[in-house]
């Protein structure tokens, strides 16, 4: 168990040392990377361990908040994902951020993130989860806003943080509801008493789901994730594709394991599944019209997260986790690949200005191709195929309509990834940036190669990670054929459509403003919700601030002091007789009080 504590606190210590001791020392990136590697080793050592430990952190009456660690197949497996991708991202960043002036801050942020994420994964109770939930929010904020000199980055960081706060509010209410229902916050001890009404449970689950909606960027709080791409690309790979955004799914699955899958039957599960389905559909549609390579991937992430959430909502949490596990590797691969491309093309992110990169950057190109293959679920050889099959199977068993959506999303996924790959990597260079692009250094392509291997192989590596791989039910054999058929058909159709539309094109041949402008959701939020809400709130706060804080508290105190001072200033008249009179009055009063009183 001591290893687990080291695993949790090592990144924090490293972050603190980096920030407080080393500061701008060139050692900082290496220290952070070393700690990430160390946590990876520890994670491997912890595989298969089980147990719970913890200490009381704060005790209020007979209620105490615990800081505790739960080790089981779920958390140890997830730790492999977090530390594995974390390590690779650290290594990649050594190359990617080599010229950045503030890399100390960047690596400190990464270490802080590793600490927070580890906390969520290992947490043994809801309170601790919530604390670390907020901590990942903070580190995500810091990393998105790494280039805070850019307004867009600063805005995106704020947007991410605030949007997450909205979800977190629901999450907190949900935690309190769960506490009131079960009387405990520890995952291991939760049991729903018989007397609790179904509505109450549904409400609690949905409130907790709010947290996942925020963190995993589900509709309607999905708006922050595409903007979060303003951060450095390795951050996008680690936080906004592989780990943090998956925290919502992980947490939902934790709840599902703790409370029993049957609580997700009925309204709660349906709502979750539908939100997941809608998110995946909308995100996939938006992805088809994005020009920024990172945004394509960002919407793709949204879409895949929607898959996972849908799976959890349908009671197939294992399928969701499995997809989370495989998706983490190949999405990290895709993001790092795009990072390599962006790095090579002098920070050009528009795919229409790239082209022909496969020849210029063969390693990056082929690993990107492998990642794409995994994402579009090329049958039998890629890990993405197996996990997607599981989700489709879960959907097929529970809800045929959602199954249809999922298949359509699979088609769209193939389509937009084909588009991105064809436009960016094939054809001719369309810009001098891509013309002069050349292969990135080993610090960057080695992680790509490792991730490419994982993109293919992770589905088979789940032996020790039993929670990541659902026990296959051979219940619907005839359904299996339909699922496989639909999946392959969508793949083929998507490839054909993608190639047909975009092969050899230098300009965007199709423009669908609705998708391109993200269903105008951001605009609606900005123009109506945020503005009015903000204005009303600002007016209230301003009123409060002016009247109470400024007027009564701060201003009142200072005015009181000034008034008293002015009063006493009168006494200091400078008139000798005045002083003499006061003195005589004092004497008379002293006589009065000593003799007569």
């Amino acid at each position: 168990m001591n290893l687990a504590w080291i695993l949790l606190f090592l990144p924090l210590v490293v972050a603190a040392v980096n920030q407080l001791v080393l500061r701008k020392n060139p050692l900082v990136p290496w220290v952070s990377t070393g700690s990430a590697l160390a946590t990876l080793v520890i994670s491997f050592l912890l595989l298969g361990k089980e147990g719970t430990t913890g200490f009381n952190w704060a005790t209020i009456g007979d209620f105490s908040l615990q800081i505790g660690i739960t080790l089981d197949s779920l958390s140890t497996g997830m730790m492999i994902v977090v530390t594995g991708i974390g390590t690779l991202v650290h290594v990649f960043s050594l190359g990617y951020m080599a010229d950045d002036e503030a890399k100390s801050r960047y690596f400190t942020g990464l270490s802080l993130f590793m600490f927070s994420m580890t906390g969520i994964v290992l947490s043994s109770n809801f309170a601790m989860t919530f604390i670390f939930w907020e901590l990942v929010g903070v580190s995500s904020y810091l990393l998105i806003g790494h280039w805070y000199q850019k307004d867009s980055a600063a805005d995106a960081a704020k947007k991410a943080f605030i949007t997450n706060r909205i979800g977190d509010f629901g999450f907190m209410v949900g935690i309190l509801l769960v506490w009131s229902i079960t009387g405990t916050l520890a995952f291991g001890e939760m049991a729903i008493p018989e007397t609790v009404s179904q509505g109450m449970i549904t409400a609690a689950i949905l409130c907790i789901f709010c947290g996942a909606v925020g963190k995993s960027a589900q509709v309607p709080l999905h708006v922050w994730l595409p903007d979060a791409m303003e951060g450095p690309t390795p951050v996008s790979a680690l936080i906004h594709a592989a780990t943090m955004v998956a925290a919502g799914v992980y947490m939902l699955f934790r709840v599902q394991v703790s409370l029993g899958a049957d609580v997700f039957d009925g309204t709660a599960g349906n709502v979750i599944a539908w939100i997941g389905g809608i998110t995946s559909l909308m995100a996939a549609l938006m992805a088809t019209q994005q020009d920024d390579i990172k945004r394509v991937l960002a919407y793709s992430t949204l879409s895949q997260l929607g898959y996972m959430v849908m799976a959890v909502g349908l009671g197939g949490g294992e399928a969701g986790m499995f997809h989370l596990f495989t998706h983490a590797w190949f999405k990290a691969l895709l993001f790092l690949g795009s990072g390599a491309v962006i790095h090579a093309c002098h920070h050009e992110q528009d795919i229409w200005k790239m082209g022909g990169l496969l020849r210029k950057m063969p390693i990056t190109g082929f690993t990107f191709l492998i990642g794409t293959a995994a994402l579009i679920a090329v049958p039998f050889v890629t890990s993405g195929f197996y996990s997607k099959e599981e989700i489709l199977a879960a959907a097929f068993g529970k809800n045929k309509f959602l199954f249809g959506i999922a298949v359509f999303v699979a088609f769209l996924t193939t389509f937009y990834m084909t588009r991105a790959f064809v436009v960016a990597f094939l054809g001719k260079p369309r810009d001098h940036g891509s013309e002069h692009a050349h292969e990135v250094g080993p610090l960057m392509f080695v992680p790509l190669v490792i991730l490419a291997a994982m993109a293919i192989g992770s589905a088979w590596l789940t032996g020790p990670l039993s929670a990541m791989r659902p026990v296959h039910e051979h219940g619907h054999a005839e359904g299996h054929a339909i699922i496989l058929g639909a999946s392959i058909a969508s793949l083929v159709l998507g490839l054909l459509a993608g190639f047909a539309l975009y092969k050899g094109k230098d300009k965007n041949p199709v423009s669908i403003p609705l998708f391109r402008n993200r269903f105008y959701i951001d605009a609606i939020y900005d123009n109506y919700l945020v503005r009015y809400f903000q204005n009303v709130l600002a007016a209230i706060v301003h009123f409060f601030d002016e009247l109470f804080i400024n007027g009564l508290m701060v201003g009142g105190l200072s005015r009181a002091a000034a008034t008293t001072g002015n009063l006493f200033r009168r006494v200091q008249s400078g008139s000798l007789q005045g002083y003499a009179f006061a003195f005589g009055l004092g004497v008379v009063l002293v006589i009065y009080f000593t003799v007569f009183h």
Partner: protein
Amino acid sequence: MPSFLFWLFAVLMLAGGVAVVAFRNPVSSAMSVVASFVGLAALFVGLSAFFVGIIQILVYTGAVMVLFLFIIMLLDLKDEQKRAPKLAPVAAGFALVIAFVIQLVGVLAKMPATTAPKLDQAALASAAGGFNEGGKIATALTAGRLPDVQLIGHTLFTQYNLPLQILGVLLLVATVGVVVLSKKHAD
């Protein structure tokens, strides 16, 4: 002291005091102070404090008041100009004084009236035992006289020697201070 003389000098003293406050011309005020202090010295003598009465005349009326007059002349002060008297401060001043007097009367009204113990020959002779036999004090006391100056000197140089020395230093300091203050700055 017969009551008649007491009241005579008391009234002289108080009238002088009132005149000090009432006169507009500082020279008149100073002369009134002299009159008042003469009455006061007479009261001291009436209390058998001959030495104090005499230095009251010598030091106050003789030295201090002359100094006052000298300064008044030096500064060549005009009469206090007539100003519209501010009613509030004047009323407040009077109220204060009246309150003080009322309190004074209140205190004295509660005190039993004590008369002065007699200093006749028998009383004085009995006090002679505390002094050197054959000394001036003892001789005078035995003879029924009060050797006021000798007694003062005796007390001063036996019990109050150190304060006397300090007083001397104080006077020296005051002298130096006055010289420094009065000196025109040579810059």
